[in-house]
């Protein structure tokens, strides 16, 4: 066996020491990053922003969208704030998106974190307006309706519905938000006259439920009724055949286990 080369040994030890410092630091670093990126789920991003985790990866934190925003509503989160560091956001109560048709913030983005696939500002989904009906003036029976009147897509994103008023013969006119048209611009939140806004923009994932594929709304106009229903999987061959031998839907009451 040859003598171990002291230089080589020293080199290897130094490499191991460097790797150890970078490794322990790296673990701490990874932990910090995880915390920072999950900081708060309620950040409202400019139009065209990618889904949260993709946006976190793609945004280079340059602030060009902030500079190019005509109403100057976008801000970059400074260090130590509630939201993930350095990325653009807006707060509708103080500064709502005015939905510029040419989407200058998206065009300013160099990395594609604000996706150029957004062609029409009406297709932006920055958030969703949610009404607190306990504090909404219209739901108190007043003819407020300011959110409906201010809405840039009124009649589609916010409609007025009639709602019976307990003992009075006069109906209430209450606003209703439709997620298929609401962009989350926040003009309604900005305009709401209550002390704390009764209509607010929140990220979709915080407010939207999902009905699930297995519900068939047989009474809706565009749903085919019963004809293309598939039979229940062959898992229960011993089940009693359906009376009359028709094409079977799923019998939720008796054989819906595991749904």
């Amino acid at each position: 066996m040859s003598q171990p080369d002291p230089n080589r040994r020293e080199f290897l030890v130094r490499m191991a020491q460097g790797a150890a410092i970078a490794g322990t630091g790296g673990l701490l670093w990874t932990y910090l990053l995880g915390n920072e990126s999950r900081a708060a789920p309620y950040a409202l991003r400019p139009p065209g922003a990618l889904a949260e985790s993709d946006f976190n990866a793609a945004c280079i934190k340059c602030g060009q969208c902030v500079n190019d925003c005509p109403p100057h509503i976008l801000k970059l989160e400074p260090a130590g704030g509630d939201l993930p560091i350095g990325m653009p956001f807006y707060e509708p109560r103080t500064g709502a998106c005015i939905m510029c048709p040419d989407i200058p913030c998206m065009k300013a983005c160099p990395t594609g974190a604000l996706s150029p696939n957004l062609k029409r500002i009406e297709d932006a989904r920055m958030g969703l307006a949610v009404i607190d009906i306990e504090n909404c003036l219209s739901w108190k029976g007043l003819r407020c309706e300011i959110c409906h009147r201010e809405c840039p897509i009124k009649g589609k994103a916010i409609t007025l519905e009639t709602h019976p008023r307990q003992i009075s013969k006069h109906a209430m006119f209450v606003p209703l938000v439709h997620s298929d048209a609401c962009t989350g611009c926040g003009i309604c939140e900005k305009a709401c006259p209550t002390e704390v806004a009764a209509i607010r923009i929140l990220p979709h994932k915080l407010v939207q439920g999902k009905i699930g594929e297995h519900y068939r709304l047989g009474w809706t106009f565009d749903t085919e009724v019963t004809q293309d229903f598939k039979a229940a999987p062959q898992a229960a061959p011993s089940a009693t055949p359906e009376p009359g031998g028709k094409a079977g839907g799923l019998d939720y009451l008796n054989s819906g286990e595991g749904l």
Partner: protein
Amino acid sequence: MNAPASRQETARTDHAVPTGLWAWRYIILRRISQFGILLMFFGTAHWGWQVAKDTPLLTGNLSASKFIGLIPLTDPFAALQIFLAGHVLQQESLIGAAIVFALYLLVGGRVFCAWVCPVNLVTDAAGWLRSRLGIGTLVHLSRGLRYFVLAATLAISVITGLAAFEWVSPVGMAHREIIFGLGAGFTALLAIFLFDLLLLKHGWCGHLCPLGAFYSLVGKTAQVRVRFDKDTCTHCGECARVCPEPQVLNLKKLEERGYVFSGECSNCGRCTPICPEGSLKFDFKPLIRGHLAADAIAVNRRTR
């Protein structure tokens, strides 16, 4: 500063050590560059500076920007991290990264550190105060550690799907918060100041910063370098005393190559005015090669 008379006699040129403002020329130029770039960003963001109607002067920040509404500029290190985090960058930022990368390949990667980076103002201040107060070193770290931090940055970007350094970078924080509004980023600068002042000389820029490490690697091809004249050098050590990366002034290696070749040299120009013999001067690498060739020919003639 005063070289002994015998040394001056042997010097090939009758070089006088510059005094007054001229001795500070590179520091002054660097501050003008650092503040000027910061001011261009700030003025565009806050005062709407533009070169023509609807063409802002310099929008964005050091991570990514657009100069006169035309030339995209992107931090190539940030772009690399974002790519490793799993995002395919749009063309504009790729072109911007290529432009910046090419520029630093030419002038030296760490020119960013000495002439552009806002943290340099903080670390220079800490370094100056440290030498004034004569503070000793508490922590010893290898200057090679930054390359491990660089490797960790890239690995963590892949693992977490986030541009690892961009999320914690004091450089980015400082720049963003000066341009786009204050936050806790200044505490990071304060931490760097205290670390550099009290714990380790040139601690952040010279030992830890992965961006500096990245640009050190980029800097290997630099065409602007400090030329070293071995005939006039008296080995007084003034240059190494002021150099923030004194390992690049290894005289034995400098004598072989004739110029400061390490990518870790930031072309800050501290060594050139302070050299009593004028042995260190900025020059272009091809010209340096030319000088060396001419010297070799001269030597050949003499020995023939």
